[in-house]
């Protein structure tokens, strides 16, 4: 036994340099496509803006100042707190949270349903979940816009059935944005929860029933806690991209329902171009998301036994 362990360690030590080489491509890709761009953004957010895009290589806190404070049209009034961007952030967080909750409410039963089918039909159902991804997100969002506009098929159908007398205004509302986000990211909720439920040992539910638990107690005291890692993974995978999304808010929400993603996009494209400000917004968003994840991970570290 001891000899066996010794040999195993010896082997891994022999292959140590080899292992570094094997990991190297991943590190290169992460470094090149993730770390460097983030550092560039961080740098840009502290530079001075060039009109019509670009930066001037001169240190400035103007971008962060603009986010937080209102100094009047000419920049010489006493600074008051600027609510515009904070409001956009708060609205984005609420929209993303609602979309995540919708995804969870629909995604969990869906995942549970798929995971409890026979192994053969499971792959068919999973395939169906991924089918929408064969079509570009932009096109899918445009079709959604077409479907829910005032004289679109949904309203026409409801009118024809006599359910409503006048078309429901769905387009350019919060509802439209949430629907768009929900539709775009639902599979990200379904797949991790499916993976967790598929591994769930249903004799745990039997054991709970055997110990006098009713259905709801089994769901909330046993099933949900055991598959919680999958639920959390799904929520993160939906919430984070929803927060930064710009397609759904742009196409379905209209100008009134501006979200962080659109705000940032606007700074890098078109005439509003203000690269340092866009970079600063992205950094603030990134910091918030990372901070939330770190706090979460800290709090739940003791439970991470399995």
């Amino acid at each position: 036994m001891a000899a066996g362990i010794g040999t195993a360690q010896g082997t891994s030590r022999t292959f140590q340099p080899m292992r570094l080489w094997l990991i190297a491509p991943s590190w290169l890709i992460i470094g090149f496509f993730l770390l460097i761009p983030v550092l560039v953004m961080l740098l840009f957010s502290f530079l001075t803006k060039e009109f019509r895009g670009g930066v001037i290589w001169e240190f400035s806190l103007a971008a962060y100042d603009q986010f937080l404070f209102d100094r009047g049209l000419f920049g010489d009034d006493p600074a008051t707190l600027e609510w515009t961007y904070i409001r956009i952030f708060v609205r984005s967080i609420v929209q993303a949270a609602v979309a995540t909750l919708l995804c969870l409410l629909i995604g969990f039963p869906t995942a549970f349903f798929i995971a409890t089918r026979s192994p053969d039909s499971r792959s068919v159902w999973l395939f169906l979940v991924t089918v929408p991804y064969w079509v570009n997100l932009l096109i899918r969002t445009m079709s959604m816009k077409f479907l829910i506009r005032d004289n679109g098929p949904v309203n026409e159908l409801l009118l024809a059935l006599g359910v409503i007398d006048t078309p429901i205004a769905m387009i350019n509302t919060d509802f439209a944005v949430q629907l768009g986000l929900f539709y775009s990211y639902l599979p990200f909720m379904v797949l991790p929860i499916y993976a967790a439920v598929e591994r769930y040992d249903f004799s745990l539910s039997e054991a709970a029933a055997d110990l006098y638990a009713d259905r709801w107690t089994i769901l909330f005291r046993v099933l949900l806690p055991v598959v919680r890692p999958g639920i959390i993974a799904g929520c993160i995978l939906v919430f984070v991209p929803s927060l930064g999304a710009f397609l759904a808010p742009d196409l379905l929400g209209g100008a009134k329902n501006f979200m962080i993603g659109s705000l940032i996009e606007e700074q890098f494209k078109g005439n509003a171009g203000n690269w340092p400000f866009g970079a600063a917004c992205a950094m603030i968003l990134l910091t918030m998301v990372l901070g939330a994840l770190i706090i979460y991970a800290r709090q739940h570290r003791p439970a991470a036994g399995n």
Partner: protein
Amino acid sequence: MSGPQENCPAVEIRNVTKQFGSFIALSDVSVSIRDKEFFTLLGPSGCGKTTLLRLIAGFEDVTGGEVLLYGEDIARLPPNRRPVNTVFQHYALFPHMTVRENIGFGLKMRGITGQDAENRVNRMLDLVHLEALAERRPNQLSGGQQQRSALARAIAPGPKVLLLDEPLSALDLKLRQAMRLELKRLQQETGITFVFVTHDQEEALAMSDRIAVMSEGIVQQTGTARDIYDRPVNRFVANFIGETNLLDVEIDRRDGSVDCRLANGEIVEVESVPAGIGSTARAQLLIRPERIELLPPQAGSMRGRIIEAVYLGTDMQYLVLLRGDIRITARSQNSDAAKPQFSTGDEVAVLLGDGAARLLLH
């Protein structure tokens, strides 16, 4: 809660049938399990023993028949309303709870909380010797410790009947043997009726007050360990429990005793004859290997030749070829140096002690 009546069986299965689609898992099974008894359902995999246990627990519905618990029909009750608890084959401990929380779960569900619940959990921890590990999670325990946690969890709510579904099958041999004694002790200390499912005949013989041998959805025989080993009612039971020589014989009935003529013409005497055998009939003779005595050739009239001798530690096992190409297996304990030892090729006399041979109808 009304106390169980004296003579009322703990569990009574009456003409129970269970079908899964077109597959018949249990067909017209009737079993009566007594109060405070260690009862074992024994059979090969797929014989329906686990299905029967799950019917008692309530995880499956009967297709037909009745399941009575102390005289009360529970066949239509959901599992959470049956006063029985189960120890699962792979324990099914809740992974997100500590051992203490696992054991307390059933108590909490029954509305027992506070000091009362804590005392009971502590008593359970003491009973299965897990006090020191109470705050651990299941994945931090060894197989044996998980096993004992599962037992404590199932016993804690004070079930009338404890159902055990092959609880020892996931343990290694040494631990399995230790747990047998432990289970027996627990059963005697708690006075709970145990219904134990296993495919391991040794386990069944070692622990059970009574055993039901099952195969193909039917109870073949119910009785004490001695009943089913010494007096199996049919070939299946005889073959499944222990090793057996089964020899075709013709029966000759005389007043008092019965002669059985082997295919080679030799005569074996048996004492008791199952009812329903005519004066002459074909039947099978069952002889346990350890009931056959081998002696030097001059000591008896039935002769044979050793064609295989295997040393098994505690025993010697011999394969003996009789006249007429009849093969029988004999075992003798290596307990006495004075006992004759044989090797391959030796001529021997084959002696059957009183009651060694038993007749089985075809």
